[in-house]
């Protein structure tokens, strides 16, 4: 029984067809990559899954829940978290607050409870504080907990973005070009980190990536998009030898 099931997903921006007839089944625990040239519709797929856009056509089921028409925060509460192509941290807030914000949906106390500091608020806040710091510790960010997010070095900002996503306790993690802007050393660390969080948090991961090294190195399956169409699908080895892929994608860009 797949954890994520997408059927016939199609999306138009005005007259422009960004995604056409996209299908995907993700089994629990899988690590699947989506690749394709710029403008192929990869990020749009993420935006459709997470409810930022409402698909023109098609259905998305996650653990039996229909996601179409749900708000992003509702979808996140169901267990899907994501990162962004360009880092979108809460730049002026501390590292700790960035992670604590991601506890929003699981917090039960109400406004009155907060304003009058009722026991429920005090207890839950203590829990959130501790859990957030523990997560930062796990991710190697504890020492920077009080830093303002924008003051972190680039690699750690990427890492914080992943930590923030993990704080929502997802079952499925969507990573949008996590290696963008990283040097080879950082990319090696990142690949190790992705593998590690997958085991540690028992995650299913869907990954968009331009760096062939990352995709070929860690993904079990790969889907290739071009102009919104799925042009190939298979294991890294199959994709590397697929002529259509080489023509549409690998032919243009150097393999890192």
């Amino acid at each position, binding site marked *: 029984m797949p954890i994520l099931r997408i059927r016939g997903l199609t999306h138009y921006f005005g007259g422009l067809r960004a995604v056409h007839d996209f299908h995907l089944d993700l089994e629990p625990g899988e690590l699947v990559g989506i690749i394709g040239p710029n403008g192929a519709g990869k990020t749009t797929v993420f935006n459709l899954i*997470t409810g*930022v856009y409402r698909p023109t056509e098609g259905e998305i089921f996650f653990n039996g829940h229909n996601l179409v028409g749900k*708000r*992003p*925060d509702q979808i*996140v*509460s169901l267990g899907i*978290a994501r990162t962004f192509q360009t880092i*979108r*941290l*809460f*730049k*002026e*807030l501390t590292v*700790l*607050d960035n992670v*604590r*914000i*991601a*506890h*929003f*949906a*699981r*917090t039960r*106390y109400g*406004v009155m409870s*907060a*304003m*009058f500091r009722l026991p429920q*608020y005090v207890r839950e*806040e*203590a829990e*959130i*504080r*501790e859990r957030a*710091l*523990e997560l930062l*510790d*796990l*991710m*190697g960010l*504890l020492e920077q*907990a*009080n830093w303002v997010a924008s003051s972190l*070095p680039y*690699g*750690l900002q990427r*890492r914080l973005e992943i930590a923030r*996503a993990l*704080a*929502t306790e997802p079952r499925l993690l969507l990573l949008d070009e996590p290696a963008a802007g990283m040097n080879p*050393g*950082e990319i*090696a*660390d990142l690949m*190790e*980190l992705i593998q*590690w*969080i997958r085991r*540690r948090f028992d995650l299913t991961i869907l990954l968009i990536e331009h760096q062939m090294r990352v995709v070929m190195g860690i993904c079990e399956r790969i889907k290739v998009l071009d102009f919104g169409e799925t042009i190939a699908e298979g294991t890294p080895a199959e994709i590397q030898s697929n002529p259509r892929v080489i023509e549409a994608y690998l032919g243009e860009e150097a393999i890192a």
Partner: protein
Amino acid sequence: MKRPSFSFLTPVLTPVRVAYASLPFSVRRWTMPILLVLFFVVALLSPSFINLYWQQVLIYVGINIILTASLNLVNGYMGEFSVGHAGFMAVGAYVASILTVWVFPRWGLEAYIAYLFPIALLVGGLAAGLTGLVIAFPSFRTRGDYLAIVTLAWNMIVKSVLENIDAIGGPRGFMGMQKLTSVAWVYVWVVFTIYLLRNLVYSNFGRGTLSIREDEIASSLVSVDTRKVKITVFVVAAFFAGIAGGLFAHIIQFINPRSFSILKSTDVLVMVYLGGISSLGGSILGATVYTVLLELLRPLQVWRWVVGPLLLVLLMIFRPRGIMGMQEWPFLIPREERAERVAALMERIRGRREAFAATAPVGGSSD
């Protein structure tokens, strides 16, 4: 958090601070309550040693603190731009006044009016809070400039509606309120407001509010229910503006729709951006400095109305975050959020680290 520094006082302050810090926590925890009660007693006794004029100035300072702190929630913490705060103030002022002038006396409660005043204020605040929804719902769909226009339209509509209801005086205004607002009452409401707002700011909702300012879409994608947060923020801000309106009506004893025009809203904006965005301490500072400044400039007559707008423009160009933007006075931060407490918790977590089977790989090259 950076503390404001007053270097010339350092030789005096440092020994005091060190001595204070050496006191046991069981003693220190009572400092704030004792100070608050002490100030309350001073406020209660103030009519016997402060003249009427300065009492009034103090009252205006207090009312402006409430207005500024509540608007800061919207404009500072959430990063929206509301220009209609006076509209909510008007709702609170009229509702509270109608209660004390018409309703309570009609129920034969005239003798107890001083005791019922807080109830009138609360009802006024609730009515204003309810109208806060008028702005909250549009804010789901529009933000930035367009939401600013919505709040502005709201302000104009309130004024226009009040002008057209003849029963409450129409454009001539409403009067007959007793002078129920005193320094002590205002003090109590200011403490109450700042306390409640502080608690809100340092909660899930406060962090959600800040995250909307930083990046609304990212915020909803880390599970923040932005609608819930917006409703909370607009309703709470409107509630306190309503309280301020009620207090205002019962010191000035005469209100008319023009008292709550866009000019009043702009005054509050100046105080927010003068004191500093996302800072309750800044709101206290901004409201105090601006109110006292305008009083001191009274000899300038009409010219003093040029000061506020000019100040606003200069602030935006040279210090857009205000005096204390994004900083907070330490005593306004809840104890468990203060740096030393968080550091202690971090230490405990470090101590437990061994218990975990594994920690995320931290590459040496990720700098």
